[in-house]
């Protein structure tokens, strides 16, 4: 049994004290001398050509210092399908022009003085409509991204269905919903000659630096991006247009500019979870063996591509990997519409795909007379991975998830999750029913798989500073998940010192080395691996430097909280301050492209819910929730539990109440507020238990795997299956709002009569 100094301990969140006192600075809190306030004019039309813009009156308003329109903006692209400003507006809320003025009220007034002549164009707001041949075209290349679906195949579904005794097929839909991070996006830009400094809500300062460099045609070295505290994003704040517009305004005004989006703008022009329609077809033998899985997803990427190509791929992950099966296929249709863009919202497409897959799994197990849990235990993918042959060359890091079989997982605790979760909710015991006839209770479950591991190249720097302190530097951003806490835990453990002794500098493109986005649940794995390696090197260097000072061999020395000591003669020791004094600052840097050539690295889990449905009102209440996860070794239990509980509760919103509504007649977002896009509150927070499988991953740093996104995947199927168990009504469209539940009760009772 390995004993650790800090790994596995609930060290307090490093950045929480200053957040509790209001001292923590977020981007909107940045104040610079002479700073102006910027505002963005947005399109009132879902699709229109901008013929002309008259900004004379706005420019003449005293206190207005800069204006930018598509006709005079720099020509750079902020994304492959998005210039800084465009002469074509593609959804209601698309950026059209921007102003900077002495204060916010003036900027707002200036916007109302801008006259825009639009030529309205045909538009489409629904993805299923958009891929029909006669649909209005959102762009010259057509609505279907790439002109064809993304198709991923292992084996042959035709063969698989031929082996089946029975074939089941159902279609499910999930709406777009907003991440609605409580911090609306903000950016501040300031120029000093040719040098630009940008403060923004971000989860990747180096990615932003590169994107701004390309957009503005300014050398990367002249741009500094400084991440502030990030008021979360869940993946929905990756965009460059806001920062680029702010920078252009600041350059024109010759003064710093800040733009803070309003809550309404965040809803209307933010990045949402992609709406989907998914059809899953599964073939099974009468004994429950799965012989084929074929999933087809139509996904709405909105007006811009954004992260759509990655998200459409992830929506197929469950169908391709969750059930042991040699014959599977996924077809993903990613479609432009004239609605707000989708983004990389927590777990990308996995929650949408798993909702369909795990709901259908319950339909199948019921039809076959097999218990839902037994069906999963019989068919879930095991440690050996999928059957079939490896196609990926054996010497290649399995960075993107391979589709073929023949590659084992590095670790797989799915079965343990199913076991511990089902025990915790007394799976075999039917729910106790209340006396009142209109309240019905039931239990449901869903299991899941998520690729999260390797991530991009990451560099960590570690220093023994001149005053004897130890410091980790990385460009990583903590977006609320806790890497500011977990990274020093990793560094301290590897060095052999206490957690508090490792200081951290994060998120500054100038002073910290490159790290990938805090995205895809990869931070612990990728930057954690780099951090561990940097700490190992620093330890070796320090000992090497100290050996001659203590007149011994490095192998006789060890690091302690206080410095370095002789293993046999601990009285022979030097403090970190003394080492720094005699040897000067010591710095090492480790660059890692993490991953494995031999394994697929995935996280797993199983969720169990008990709900109560009021058949008079349609109200669904979650009484009990069990979330069982395999995320490898848990490096900080308290933070991990918070992460899982938060992910579950957030997705209870997706499951029960949240939905972005677009008026199909005019493309207008109808519910751009927290009152109408209804977020869970602590009144909705169910009794919840978080369980972790006892897994130590052989590849991840200290045995850890991905944790950030997986909690969001199992929620919708677990709750929908529990509703079915309670009232015998299968609802295939999210969210499961009271009116929808009531309508389905009525409709499905009607069907059966």
């Amino acid at each position, binding site marked *: 049994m390995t004993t650790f100094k800090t790994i596995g301990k609930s060290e307090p969140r490093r950045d929480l*004290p200053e957040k509790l006192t209001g001292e923590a600075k*977020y981007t909107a809190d940045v104040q610079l001398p002479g700073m102006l306030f910027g505002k963005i004019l947005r399109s009132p039309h879902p699709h229109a050509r901008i013929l002309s813009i008259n900004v004379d009156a706005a420019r003449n308003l005293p206190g207005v210092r800069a204006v930018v329109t598509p006709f005079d903006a720099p020509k750079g692209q902020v994304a492959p399908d998005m210039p800084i400003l465009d002469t074509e507006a593609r959804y209601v809320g698309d950026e059209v022009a921007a102003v900077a003025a002495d204060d916010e009220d003036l900027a707002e007034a200036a916007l109302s003085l801008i006259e825009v002549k639009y030529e309205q164009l045909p538009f489409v707001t629904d993805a299923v409509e958009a891929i029909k041949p006669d649909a209005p075209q959102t762009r010259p290349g057509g609505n279907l991204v790439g002109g064809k679906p993304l198709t991923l195949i292992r084996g042959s579904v035709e063969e698989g269905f031929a082996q089946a005794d029975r074939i089941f097929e159902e279609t499910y839909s999930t709406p777009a919903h907003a991440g*609605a991070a409580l911090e609306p996006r903000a950016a501040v830009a300031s120029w000093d000659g040719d040098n630009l400094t940008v403060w923004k809500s971000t989860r990747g300062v180096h990615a932003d630096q590169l994107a701004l460099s390309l957009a503005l045609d300014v050398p990367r070295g002249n741009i500094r991006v400084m991440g502030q505290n990030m008021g979360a994003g869940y993946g929905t704040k990756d965009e460059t247009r806001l920062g680029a517009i702010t920078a252009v305004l600041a350059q024109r005004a010759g003064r710093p500019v800040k733009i803070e989006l309003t809550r309404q703008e965040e809803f209307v022009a933010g990045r949402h979870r992609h709406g989907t329609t998914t059809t899953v077809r599964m073939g099974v033998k009468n004994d429950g063996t799965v012989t084929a899985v074929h999933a087809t997803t139509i996904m709405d990427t909105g007006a811009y591509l954004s992260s759509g190509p990655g998200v459409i791929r992830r929506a197929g992950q469950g169908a391709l990997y969750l059930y042991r099966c040699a014959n599977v296929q996924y077809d993903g249709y990613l479609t432009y519409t004239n609605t707000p863009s989708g983004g990389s919202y927590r777990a990308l497409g996995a929650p949408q795909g798993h909702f369909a897959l795990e709901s259908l799994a319950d339909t199948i197990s019921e039809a076959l007379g097999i218990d839902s849990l037994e069906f999963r235990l019989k068919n879930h993918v095991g440690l050996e991975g999928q059957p079939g042959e490896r196609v990926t060359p054996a010497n290649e890091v399995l960075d993107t998830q391979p589709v073929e079989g023949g590659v084992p997982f590095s670790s797989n605790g799915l079965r343990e999750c199913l076991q511990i979760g089902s025990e915790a909710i007394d799976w075999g015991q039917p729910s106790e029913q209340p006396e009142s006839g209109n309240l019905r209770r039931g239990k449901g479950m869903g299991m899941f798989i998520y690729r999260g591991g390797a991530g991009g190249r990451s560099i960590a720097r570690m220093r023994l500073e001149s005053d004897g302190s130890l410091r980790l530097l990385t460009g990583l951003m903590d977006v609320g998940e806790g890497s500011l806490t977990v990274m020093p835990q990793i560094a301290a453990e590897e060095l052999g010192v206490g957690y508090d002794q490792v200081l951290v500098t994060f998120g500054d493109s100038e002073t910290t080395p490159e790290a990938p986005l805090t995205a895809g649940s990869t931070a612990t794995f990728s930057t954690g691996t780099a951090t561990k390696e940097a700490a190992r090197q620093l330890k070796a260097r320090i000992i090497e430097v100290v050996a001659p000072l203590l007149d011994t061999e490095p192998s006789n020395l060890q690091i302690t909280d206080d410095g370095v000591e002789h293993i046999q003669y601990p009285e022979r020791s030097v403090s970190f301050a003394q080492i720094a004094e005699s040897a000067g600052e010591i710095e090492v840097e480790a660059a890692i492209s993490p991953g494995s050539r031999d394994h697929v690295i995935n996280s797993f889990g199983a969720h169990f819910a008990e709900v109560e449905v009021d058949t008079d009102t349609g109200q669904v209440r979650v009484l009990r929730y069990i979330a069982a996860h395999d995320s490898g070794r848990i490096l900080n239990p308290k933070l991990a539990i*918070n992460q899982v509980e*938060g992910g579950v509760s*957030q997705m209870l919103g997706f499951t029960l109440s949240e939905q972005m509504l677009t008026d199909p007649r005019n493309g207008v977002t109808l519910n751009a*507020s927290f009152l109408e896009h209804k977020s869970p509150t602590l009144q909705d927070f169910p009794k919840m238990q978080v369980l972790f499988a006892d897994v130590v991953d052989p590849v991840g740093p200290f045995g850890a795997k991905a944790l950030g996104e997986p909690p969001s995947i199992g929620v919708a199927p677990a709750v929908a299956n529990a509703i079915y168990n309670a009232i015998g009504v299968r609802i295939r469209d999210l969210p499961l709002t009271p009116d929808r539940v009531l309508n389905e009760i009525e409709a499905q009772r009607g069907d059966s009569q």
Partner: protein
Amino acid sequence: MAQLPISYSASITLNVNGTDHQIEVDHRWTLLRVLRDVLGLTGAKRGCDRGECGACTVLVDGDPVCSCSMLALQVGGRQVRTVEGLGDANSLNVLQEAFLAEDGGQCGFCTPGFIMSATALLESNTDPTEDEIKAALVGNICRCNAYGRIIESVKAAAKSEAS
């Protein structure tokens, strides 16, 4: 042709965290704007500007209010308390210590609002039930949904106040 509204300003005495400030305020300015932009107290956050999220919660004469939905003119002569008045990172108060120990936050943007709502609760009810905690904090949204840990934090604070 849009025009700026005619602005009217007045001088008010704003007592914030025990200190009087003589401030010339535009009649349109909210309390949140004065706290953040005039006094530089950025602990109260601008999350929605319409009283839906609670990130801007401060106490006025002891009651939690959304400072985004109250005009500065309404607060002249009254006692305002903000998160900055409770302690700093090196000397957290009992409630803040409990939030740290129980991990009662994630991204932290909603945190000052929760701290102020919980402060008001514990000053009027030293031993709240879980339902009372939920009722008192229901106006504060945490989109990270760290609700489980927030509830535990408030419970722990009440317990340690009592001991």
